[in-house]
Every structure is written in C-alpha cells, then in structure tokens.
C-alpha cells in the first residue's frame, strides 16, 4: 500500500454504515432508537460527500455536508418535540403500540 488509502474504502465504509442505519430503522421498535438510526444514515451520506469532495478537489461537497448538519439539527429538535408529545399522549415509545392509523 503506497502512501494512503483507496478512496473506494471510504465509500464502502459509508455503505456499511448506511446499511446499519437501515437495519436499525427496520428492526428496532423504539421510537428514539429509530430516530438515531436515521442520524446514522445521515452521517453515512456525509462521509460520501466529503470523500467526493476529496476526489474532485473542491470544497462544494463539504458545504453540502454543512447543510446536512444544519438540517439534521433542525430535524432533531422538531422530531424530539414530536416524540415528547407522543409519549405524553400515549405513555409508550413502542411503535407497535402507536398504530391507531393502521386499522
């Protein structure tokens, strides 16, 4: 290995983290844990943006990462407020018990 890491390894790592996020979102039944899985997927996408920013030697990919972070912060604030309201009304965090729209 002369001097460095293939850029594809970063993309493979990003793919692994994204798949783990999807797995967490599909298999977990806790509202907060599902939300954290979404954050994991956003982080995987950010790693891809930064890797391609390196590939093209341009800063634009990093700007996109910055915007993703800002949107994630806004999303976390609103999402956690919604989770608080759901917990107040239903007294549970299990998504299987919050299924009143199903029937």
């Amino acid at each position: 290995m002369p001097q460095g890491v293939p850029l594809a390894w970063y993309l493979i790592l990003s793919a692994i983290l994204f798949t783990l996020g999807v797995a967490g979102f599909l298999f977990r039944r806790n509202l907060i844990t599902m939300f954290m899985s979404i954050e994991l997927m956003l982080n995987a996408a950010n790693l891809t943006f930064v890797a391609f920013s390196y590939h093209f030697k341009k800063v634009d990919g990093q700007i996109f990462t910055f915007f993703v972070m800002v949107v994630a912060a806004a999303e976390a604030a609103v999402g956690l407020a919604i989770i608080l309201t759901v917990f107040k009304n239903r007294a549970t965090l299990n998504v299987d018990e919050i299924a009143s729209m199903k029937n």
Partner: protein
Amino acid sequence: MNAIVFLIFAAVAVICGINVVVRTHPISCALALIGTMASLSVLYLLLGAQFIAAAQVFVYAGAIMVLFVFVIMLLNAGAEQKPHGAWMARLTGAPLLVALLGILGFVILRAFPRSEMARFGGFTGGTVENVGRAIFTTYLLPFEITSILVLSAIVGAVVLGYKEMD
C-alpha cells in the same frame, strides 16, 4: 500510516454502528452513536475537511446527541422488550439488507476499480477560510434559507413543547 489510522477508526465506526442496532437500551445506543460520530470526524480530518471535522464534533456529538440524551432521560426510556412477530421481519428484512449492501458495494467497486489513493494532506481546501468563502459567496442564498428553516424549527419545537404542558 494513513491506512493504519483509517482502519482503526473505520473499525471503531462500524463496531459502534453495530452497537447502535443491537443494544436494547436507548442510552447505550446514544453512546455508541457518539462513538461513530467521533471516529467519522477523524476520517473527515484525514480527507482534509478540517472545518467539517470540527463541526461534526460540535454539532453532532455535542448538540444533537445531548438533545437525544436529554429526551431519553426525560422520558425515562427503559430497555426495549422483544416484539412478537419479530422473526418475520428479520427473515424478510435481513436478505434485503444484504442485497442492499451488495448492490452498493458492487456499484462502488465498479465505478472506482482502481481509485486514487487518499492520503492526509492531499487536499487542503477544507479550511475555515475556504468553506466560509464558499458559504458566503456561492452558497449565500441557501445559507440564508437555512437560517429561516432553523428559525421555523425552533418555533415548531416550542409550540409542540408548549402544547405538551397543558
């Protein structure tokens, strides 16, 4: 040297990511997610994104995860109990996930068969100066729109929290 640092922190990121998925208690998941974010910040530094690496620690590991931990403590969320019928979801979901990972890996390796070597110092355009100049010239309009988005998110969170109190 680059490869050693990459492999160490990639392994930490993947192990912490697996912990996010398999741990039953939300606090353990949150701490594992912080580990993933911290090791990703080191990888950003390796790719020459200095500002993004710092922002990753401040914004993600600092602000967002503290919010998560606060909510977990506020709701006194305990360990999650095993749902019935979970084997059905695992049986159908696991092959699909393996297929997703396979497709992603195939496309990446197909598009980058002999990709360039990424080494520390190969790209130094991610300084605060360069990022700030790009944000306040080329991306000024999206940046201002983002501030409106954050403002509306604050108002929305306050309204939702206020309704919860009465």
